[in-house]
Each structure stands twice: as C-alpha cells, then as structure tokens.
C-alpha cells in the first residue's frame, strides 16, 4: 500500500522524521518496500518571474530572458520555449543543479554570444510528466524565490509498505497511523479529514433502496442518495494525492471512493442513481449465465458462488470487487447512490480468484474490514461528496444488520516472558494495547481482559462462533479423539493470548527481546543423522571420491525423456508446468544426469562423471518417492602416460554401484547379479544387483543406444542407480577377536576352460564354497577369450589362497584342498582345468 507523508500526518500528530517513521514501520511488521521522495531531487529548483524577454540577437528561435529569482539580481537566461514571455512565472534551475528529467547538471554557459545563468524548466525536464511543449507556467500568486517542490506539494514523500494478509486494518492510512502512534511516534488524531462524529443533515427519502436476498451474499449494507450534484474533476489536492500513490483521478465521485479505500481502508462504491433500473438494488448470489461488463471494460460471467448486486435489469456489480460499466458515474452524473457494505471475506477472496479479478476493494474485503466503522464511513463519504460536488443527501437506507463481531481476549502478563521471552512491565503492555484500541473490560490477578477493537479481525479469531470463523482448526483425522479434543481446547485457551503477546512484542520492538542460546540437554549432542541419512551422505562422499561431480537437478523433466527411463504415469504429470519440458516427475535422477551430460558434451566436455542423490518417482504416495543415488560416466578415461585412455564400460558403473553398497555396509558376498536391467540399459551389458531374490539394491550398465540417440548423447555412457531405501540397515555387531595365524598363506593359480555363457560369479562362488577350513580367498585375475581356445569357450584364471592355522601344510594337503576346489568348480559350471 502507498500513501504520502502528509496524508499520514492527517491522522498522526507527529514530528518524527521520515527515517524514524520508515524504520519503525518495518520493525512493527509494516515492511517498507520503498520511499519515493520526489521533493529531494527538486529541492534546488526555485520559483522565478520572467521580467524581460527579448529575441536572441543571433538565433531566431531563442529568447534572451531576464529572470528574477528573488535574490535581488536579475539573471540572464537563454530559453527556447515558445511560451517564454515577460510577466510569466516559472521554475528556474541554477548552475550546479542536477536536472532529473534530462540527466544533466547545469552550469553557466554562453549560447550564441549571450550569457545563460540558469534554465527555465519544462515538466519533462523535472521528471514530472511528458509535457515538453513549453516551460512550466505557474499562477501569478506563486511566490518568487520560494522552493518550487515545497510550494507545489511535491516534497511529500510517498511511502510504500507491504501489508501482511492478516492486517486488513493496515491497508488504510488511519490504521498505519494507529500502529505508529502505539509504537511511540506521535498520537493518533481523533478525527480524519472527513471522519468525525455526528451525521449529515438528511433530506428526503433515498431514490434507491437495498434488499439482501441471501445473507451469505452480504451481512449488512448501508447507502444513501445524493442528488442535485455536479460531478467534475476533483480538486487539485485530491488529484495530486491519488496520483502520488499511483491511482488515476477519474472524477470527483469515483475519486471519493478511492480516497476512502486508502484513507480508512473502507471501500465504497458509487452508482449513478439514474442509471439503475427499478428502485431497488438487490444483493444476492449469482445465477448461471448472468454477465457483468465490469468497470475495467471486460465481461465476466457470474457463478452461483459469487455475491452480486443486481437491479431490475440484472447484475450491476461484483460485490466488493468491481462495479459495472452500465451504472458507473461520469461527468453527467447528477444523482449518486453510495454503497457501504460488509461482505464475507472468504466469498470475496474466492470470487476474486475465480475471475482473476484484482482490485483495491477486493484486497481489503478479503482481509476483512471494520464492521463498526460502517455508519461513520458513510457519513464521511457524504461530507466529502457534498464538499466536492454539492447536492443534497437523502436519508440512510440499509438492509441486514451489524453482525456480532465483538470478541474478548485475556492476557496473563507472565506469558510475555513465558512465550515472548521479554520482561515487559504491566503498564507498558497495557499502554501498548490501549493505544492499539483494545479496551480493558476486566482486571484479574496478573491478567487483563480486553474487548478487541472492531478493526482487528485477526485477533482472537477463535473466540467467535465457529461458523463465523474462517478456517478454524484442521486437525489430523488420525488423532485419537481425546487427544484431538484436549489439543483443540488448549488452542482455544491460548490462541487469543498469543495474539496479544504478539501485539505487545511487535509494537515494543522484537529487538528488545533478549536472545538466549538454546539450552542443550547434553553438552555432547546425539547424532543428528539417522542411519539412513548418514548412508546418503556417505554415498555422496564415496561417489565424489571416485571422481564424480555431485549434481542437483530439477525433479521434473520432459515427459518424452522420462519415458526413456521408466514409467510415466499420468498421476505424476505436473498439471501446471512452467515449461513444457518440465512436466513429468522423473522416474530416476539418471534421466536428469543424461540430459546434463548431453549439454556438457555439446559444450565440448564429452568425458565426465556426474552423480546425483535425489528423488525418483513411482507414484505420488510417500512410499512411491524413492531416494536414489545415481551416477553417469561418459566418454573415455583421461589420457596418461602410465595408463592409456580407454572407453568407459559397464564394469566402471558396476564398480561405482558396488563401492556405494560396500560403504553402506552391504555384505558383498550376499550380492548376486542378474541380467534383467530395465529398458534404458543395454540388454547385454547391464545388470541388477540383488540381495536375496527380491530385494533390488542397484542396477548398472551401459545406456541403451536408443536412449543415447534420443538425447543426442555421444557414447559410451554407463550409469547406475542405487536404491537407498532398499539398502538394509547395517547390523551393529561386535567384531570377534582378530584371526592372525602364525603361518604363511599358500597361493595357487588355477585356469579353467568354461562355456562363454557361464557367469564368472558362478565359478567364484563354487570355488569359495569348496573348502571352508583352509580357503582364505579366491580372486579372478585373468579372463581370456580368443582363437587359441575352442569356439564358445573362455578361460578364467583364479588365484586360490589357503591359510594354514595349526601348522604348515604338506604338499599332499595342499593338493587335496586344491583338488576339492577344482571338483567343486567343475561340478557347478562344467569347467575343465586347463593344462
């Protein structure tokens, strides 16, 4: 909301500086968004009289002026404006002055041989508009030598504050003034420019009457006709004031409504009484198919949820949001009907949102306006219309009744410290609340009860009938009933008090609450991560330690891309994406990494390693959102003298996945590999890592060539996905005593010839299980497939480590143990020992 300093001062008697005011506003929750001080830039400009205006001796279009700026000497000024003439008054800039509209600084000059000691300015040069046809002409009574900005009222700074949704009352200059007064920056004036006690003497009956068809549409409405008026432009002060806060002056009647919207936060509407059909304005809910041509020139179709105002011909206004074109006031209006109504905030909010129709009126109605101000506001508006347009006011007509808005709130003083952490003396707390308009109704032992002011509908919201309480509690349906009831009762007991504590602290200054470090239960805090969270952090470290770059990507991707990596159920399609290529929740972070790799490759970085720990989405339920550690490597290993560069392959991805699983404490021996990885992997070069038959811990492999083609990703590209939720919590076991035998291990190499289709894992498993007592390790150190072998066979070479425990082994014992290994491998795989 915007207002000017002088407007504020109409409600606030203060000598506080602008800076004190803006600092305080921000501190008490009315955050200052900006201060526009046009007067500051215009301060050096003076009002000056043109005493003499002679044609320039050397230039046809210029004039040589003698200007009186009130300092006793006549200045010589060269001017090109066609309206420059002797006897006029205008605005003078002296040498050294910065001219805001033309971005220059004036200096003494000489124009074609004539000295120029200043500049007579146009409106555009001062940044006051577009007018550049001539220099500004001031009325004859303008005081020569005076500051122009001050004289013209342009030294009135415009303050813009952002008002939080709970503070409908602060969407008014009076409300802002009240808060500032409470905060010690002056006193609230008892009366406003037109707001004062008493009523305007009423003439005859009103030409129009009110009817409320449905109490949901409107609780209470007042109105009156003013006839025999002349509607023209508003006086300069009002036009200036509206312009200053960014509103366009229309005509006096409309300007009056805009004035009160800002001045008192009280939106009004004016109907041209002669344009209304029939003698009654009815407030009711909309009917299917009804339309309104609104004052913004657009047509809207009412819904049965909208509150509307109708005459005999149909809808003439959207209640509380915007009036209609057909009954609007214009220069020909001679009889006006003023509407001063109370609408349901929720209904107005939802209507406004439904029709995407914003207005200053809606903004206030949906936050709630002061119900008790209703009659006084109508009187104030009447006074203003009579002053500006003349005419005669009718009696006040009304429908509905003032709703019961009265509420009480009790504050136990100890809660200021107990909740707010501030030792506030009682007198200080009561003084603050009193100046905010709370009236004491009872005093107890250590507590005080207040009647909540009518304009503060955000205070003690729970202390009214539930039906008058928008929102209310929204308790979890899963709570046990007694627990829910106790919590609800507790809320009712303390909510209003919290409101009061907030008011006192806010106005007193939150900076005055002493900070206290959080007490810790133990000087050595417990672990802050759960085992699962620690696993994720560890996975990130493992992958980055393997040279990968940790990435963070959007969780949604283009549906086409998502489909390459898994299912794209409609339930995971974003209904309102910000861009068409961000519309599907991704099945796996690998999709995002593949896109990133393609972008990097296009930039000239084809060899890279990316990882992301993030969500992969199966369905919208909490369990359908998986935590996945994914990684992608593309291209080749680096070139190096000691190790030639090579293309990355599925084994690199398997290494990454296994490294993560190992770090997370998964027993490696229990893992099996199957070859049923999903479709985004190459079917022959990918695998699934399982623990037991059911639990999939990870999958890895080369990306499918069609995925590479679809993403323009140069290969090779190998990736993996570790399903962190599936990794079982590592068992915390005490380690037994270390086994440190005194005898040297014995190592033997065995090469087997086996069918190419037999997985190496099968061989390793068979060998490892063969001789439990002596066998200490089996590793595969060579794999050979080539033309020296029979067709369809490969050679796999194992190193077998035997560990004697009691004594050194004899050759015979070694041979026996190795024999068992060979037999087991042959039995399991059909492999034969190579000679």
């Amino acid at each position, binding site marked *: 909301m915007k207002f000017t300093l002088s407007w504020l001062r109409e409600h606030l008697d203060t000598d506080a500086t602008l800076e004190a005011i803006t600092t305080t506003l921000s501190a008490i929750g009315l955050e200052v968004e900006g201060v526009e001080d046009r007067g500051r830039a215009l301060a050096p400009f003076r009002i000056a009289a043109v005493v003499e205006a002679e044609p320039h001796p050397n230039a046809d279009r210029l004039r040589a002026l003698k200007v009186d700026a009130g300092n006793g000497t006549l200045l010589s000024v060269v001017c090109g404006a066609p309206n420059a003439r002797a006897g006029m008054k205008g605005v003078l800039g002296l040498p050294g002055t910065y001219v805001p509209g033309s971005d220059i600084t004036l200096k003494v000059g000489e124009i074609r041989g004539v000295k120029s000691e200043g500049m007579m300015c146009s409106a555009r040069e001062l940044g006051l508009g577009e007018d550049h046809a001539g220099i500004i002409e001031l009325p004859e009574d303008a005081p020569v030598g005076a500051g122009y900005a001050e004289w013209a009222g342009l030294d009135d700074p415009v303050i813009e504050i952002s008002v*939080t949704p709970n503070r409908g009352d602060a969407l008014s200059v009076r409300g802002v003034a009240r808060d500032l007064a409470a905060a010690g920056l002056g006193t609230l004036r008892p009366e406003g420019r037109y707001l004062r006690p008493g009523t305007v003497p009423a003439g005859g009956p009103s030409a129009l009457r009110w009817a409320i068809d449905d109490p949901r549409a409107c609780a209470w409405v007042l109105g009156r006709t003013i006839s025999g008026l002349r509607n023209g432009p508003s006086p300069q002060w009002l036009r200036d004031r509206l312009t200053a806060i960014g509103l366009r002056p229309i005509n006096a009647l409309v300007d009056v409504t805009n004035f009160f919207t800002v001045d008192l936060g009280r939106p009004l509407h004016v109907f041209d009484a002669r344009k209304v059909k029939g003698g009654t304005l009815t407030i009711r809910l909309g009917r299917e198919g009804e339309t309104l041509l609104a004052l913004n020139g657009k047509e809207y179709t009412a819904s049965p949820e909208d509150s509307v105002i109708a005459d005999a011909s149909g809808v003439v206004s959207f209640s509380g949001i915007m009036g209609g074109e057909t009954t609007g006031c214009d220069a020909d209006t001679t009889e006006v009907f003023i509407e001063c109504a109370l609408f349901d*905030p929720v209904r107005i*909010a*939802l209507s406004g949102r439904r029709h995407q129709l914003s207005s200053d009126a809606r903004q206030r109605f949906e936050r709630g306006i002061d119900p008790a101000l209703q009659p006084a506001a109508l009187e104030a508006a009447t006074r203003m219309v009579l002053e500006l347009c003349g005419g005669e006011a009718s009696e006040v007509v009304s429908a509905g009744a003032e709703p019961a808005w009265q509420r009480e709130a009790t504050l136990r003083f100890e809660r200021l410290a107990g*909740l*707010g*952490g*501030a030792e506030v003396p009682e007198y200080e707390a009561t003084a603050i609340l009193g100046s905010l308009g709370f009236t004491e109704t009872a005093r107890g032992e250590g507590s005080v009860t207040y009647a909540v002011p009518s304009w503060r509908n955000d205070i003690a919201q729970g202390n009214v009938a539930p039906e008058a309480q*928008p*929102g209310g*509690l*929204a*308790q*979890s349906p899963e709570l046990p009933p007694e627990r829910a009831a106790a*919590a609800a009762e*507790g*809320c009712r*007991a303390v909510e209003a008090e919290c409101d009061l504590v*907030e008011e006192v*602290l*806010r106005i007193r200054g939150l900076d005055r609450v002493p900070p*206290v*470090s959080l007490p810790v*239960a133990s000087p050595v*805090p*417990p672990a802050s*991560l759960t085992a699962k969270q620690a696993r994720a952090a560890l996975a*990130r*470290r493992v992958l*980055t*330690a*393997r040279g990968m*770059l940790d*990435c*963070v990507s959007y*969780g949604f991707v283009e549906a086409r891309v998502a489909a390459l990596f898994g299912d794209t159920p409609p339930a995971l399609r*974003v*209904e309102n994406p*910000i861009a068409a290529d*961000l519309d599907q929740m991704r099945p796996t972070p690998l999709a*995002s*990494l593949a896109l990133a790799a393609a*972008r*990097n490759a296009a930039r000239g970085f084809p060899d890279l390693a*990316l990882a992301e720990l993030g*969500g992969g989405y199966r369905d919208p339920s909490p369990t*359908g959102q998986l935590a996945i550690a994914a990684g992608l*490597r593309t291209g080749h290993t680096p070139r190096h003298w000691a190790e030639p560069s090579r293309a990355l392959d599925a*084994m*690199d991805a398997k290494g*990454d996945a*296994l490294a993560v699983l190992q770090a997370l404490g998964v027993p490696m021996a229990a893992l099996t*590999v199957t*070859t049923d990885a999903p479709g985004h992997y190459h079917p*022959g070069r990918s*695998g699934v890592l399982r623990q037991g038959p059911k639990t999939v811990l990870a999958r890895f492999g080369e990306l499918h060539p*069609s995925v590479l083609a679809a993403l323009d990703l140069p290969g090779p590209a190998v990736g993996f996905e570790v399903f962190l939720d599936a990794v079982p919590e590592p068992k915390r076991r005490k380690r037994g005593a270390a086994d440190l035998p005194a005898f040297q291990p014995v190592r033997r190499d065995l090469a087997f010839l086996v069918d190419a289709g037999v*997985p190496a894992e099968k061989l390793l498993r068979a060998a490892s299980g063969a001789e439990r007592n002596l066998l200490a390790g089996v*590793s595969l150190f060579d*794999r050979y497939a080539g033309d020296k072998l029979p067709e369809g066979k490969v050679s796999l070479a194992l190193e077998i480590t035997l560990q004697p425990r009691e004594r050194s082994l004899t050759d015979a014992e070694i041979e026996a143990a190795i024999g068992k290994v060979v037999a087991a491998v042959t039995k399991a795989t059909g492999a034969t020992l190579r000679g």
Partner: protein
Amino acid sequence: MSEATEAAELAALRQETEAALAAAADLRAWDAVRVGTLGKSGRVTALLKGLGAVPAEARKARGAALNRLKTELETAIEARRVALESAALEARLAAERLDVSLPPRPNAPGTAADGAIHPISRTVEELTAIFGAMGFAVAEGPDIEGDWYNFGALNIPEHHPARQDHDTFYLPAGPDGRRPVLRTHTSPVQIRTMLSQEPPIRVIVPGRTWRADHDATHSPMFHQVEGLVIDRDITLGHLKGCLIDFLRAFFAIADLPVRFRASYFPFTEPSMEVDIGWDRKSGELGKGSDWLEILGSGMVHPRVLANCGIDPRVWQGFAFGMGIERITMLKHGMADLRPFYESDVRWLRHYGTGPLAPASLAEGF
C-alpha cells in the same frame, strides 16, 4: 498400350520391388533397391520421365497412377529401412554381451581430486553440523505432498490470501479428489514430525521445495531448511538466540549484526523476519549499514500444534525456514541462481568442495 496392360505393368513393377525389398537382407541391398526404383535412373523415375510422351488425353490418368505407385513404394522402402535398422540394432545388442558378473576393476576411473560436492549439499552438511551441535536431528519428508500437510495443517485454509503467494505446482487429483502438490516449503515436515513423535522435538529439515516461478532470482525447484523446536518452556528469546548462534557460525562472522522484524506467517505467532547486516554495494556481510532479509521465523501457532494433537497449553516452541541457495550464494558471493541446477561441469568444479573434507565443527568450514 491399353489401360489394362498399363495397370498390369505397374502392378508387376510393384510386386517386383516389394519382393526385392523383402529379399534385401541388409542396408546395402536395401539401398540398391531404393536407387533402382526411385533413384535418378530408377524404374519409377524412368516411367515418370516418360509421361511427357504419353498422349494428352491419357496423361492425367497415367500420371495419377504413377504417383500413387511412387507414394506406395516410398512408404514400403522406408518401412523396410526401419525394419532393417531395428534388426541390425537387435543383432548388435544380441552380439554385444558382457559377463556382468565379473568383478569390476579395483580402481575408479577418477579420483577424489576430480570429484566435487555440490554447494547445496555442502551447505546442508554445514547446517547439519551447526544445528547438530545445538541438539537438532535431521528430519525428512516427501517432495509430493498432500494438500493438508502443505497448507491445511499449517493454518493456511483454502481461501487464505497466503495461498496465492505460494505458486503451487499441482499433480492430478487422486482417488480422494484432492490434488497432490509439490511441496512449496519444507514446513509439511513439521507436521509429519509432530504427528510421528512426541515432544520434546528439535529437528531441522533440509530439502527440495517447488514453486511455479522462474526468473533470474527464482527457480521452480529450490531448497529450504526448516527448523522446529517444541518443548515446555521455549520462548521467542530462544528463537532469537538459536538463529543468531547459527548465522554467526555459518557465515563465520562472530559479530554479524542480526535484526528481527515483526511479520506474519499463518503457521507462527508471533512471527518475525530476520535480517543480517551487510554492505549492499560490496556485498560484504557484517559490514556497512544495510540490511538483508534472510529468513522467516516465529513461535509455532497454537492451531498448528492443535492440528497435530499437541496441547498448546503444555507445549510451545518455534519454527524457522530459510533458503539454502540464498545463504549459500551470500556465503560464497555467488551472483546467479540458475547454474545451481544446470550441472555445468565447469561450474561444479569451480564452486564444488572436495569430497575428503567433510563439514565438521572440529575441522571448521
């Protein structure tokens, strides 16, 4: 030639071409058929060239028939190409077999010197270390949330003006008729935590959040960290102390000025916005005389407690939320938000941290 003969001739041409296509076993053979049919001196091309010699009265009918044939053959040729290519891919995939049960290489293709932790991950680690020292545990929750968790339980009913400030992403309505949302803040995890554990509670919630807003300073996905403390006698003074302690530790400025301003959030009361002191011109924190808004906070609203079955007569506490990108950018003097999510390897290497120095109070950061 009679019309019947002509038709027979074209039908034969079609049959022969189709047979040849079927017989083409690879793309080379296929290309020979294509060139022989539609190429410069292909059979159909030749017939089309010959149209000029056909008598005017027959030309129209013959031209139409030829063009029809040409279109049909083009379709057939293209279909065969797709089939052959997909067969070739199938054959290639079938031939490309790797025994994935082999043990992987002992070393990764890269080392810790190549890897880097993303600045967001790093900041989360730092947050965790600092708040961990104050006794906070880390809590998490889903990205896709129910409306009640994201709004209703947090005292933001359907009509609330605050809903408009949250540019919410929606997913299609589920069986209950309600549309799930991509959580607009980490606050729903407050609700999940209060429903799943008894007070006292002391958690932080770092995580992804989403809003339908995209420009230089807004990303449709970003990160927040939420804090929630519920206990019997936690006051606003503790909230201030906790945040001051955190901000000074995180930015490593022992005398960082911190300012508290009244504000409003539906889920806290009293509510405060928190500013830190900085010099707007140089961007230096802790210097100068300007203020920079950095986070929102307040005492948990009694309605929020009651919505979770916690009796606000017994329990009270505070909550806060701040943007992780924002504090990361401030701490490291980063100007632009967008590269955070673009995975440009040059940016990741520049702003990332090495993996071997975890954020810890012992080592400092």
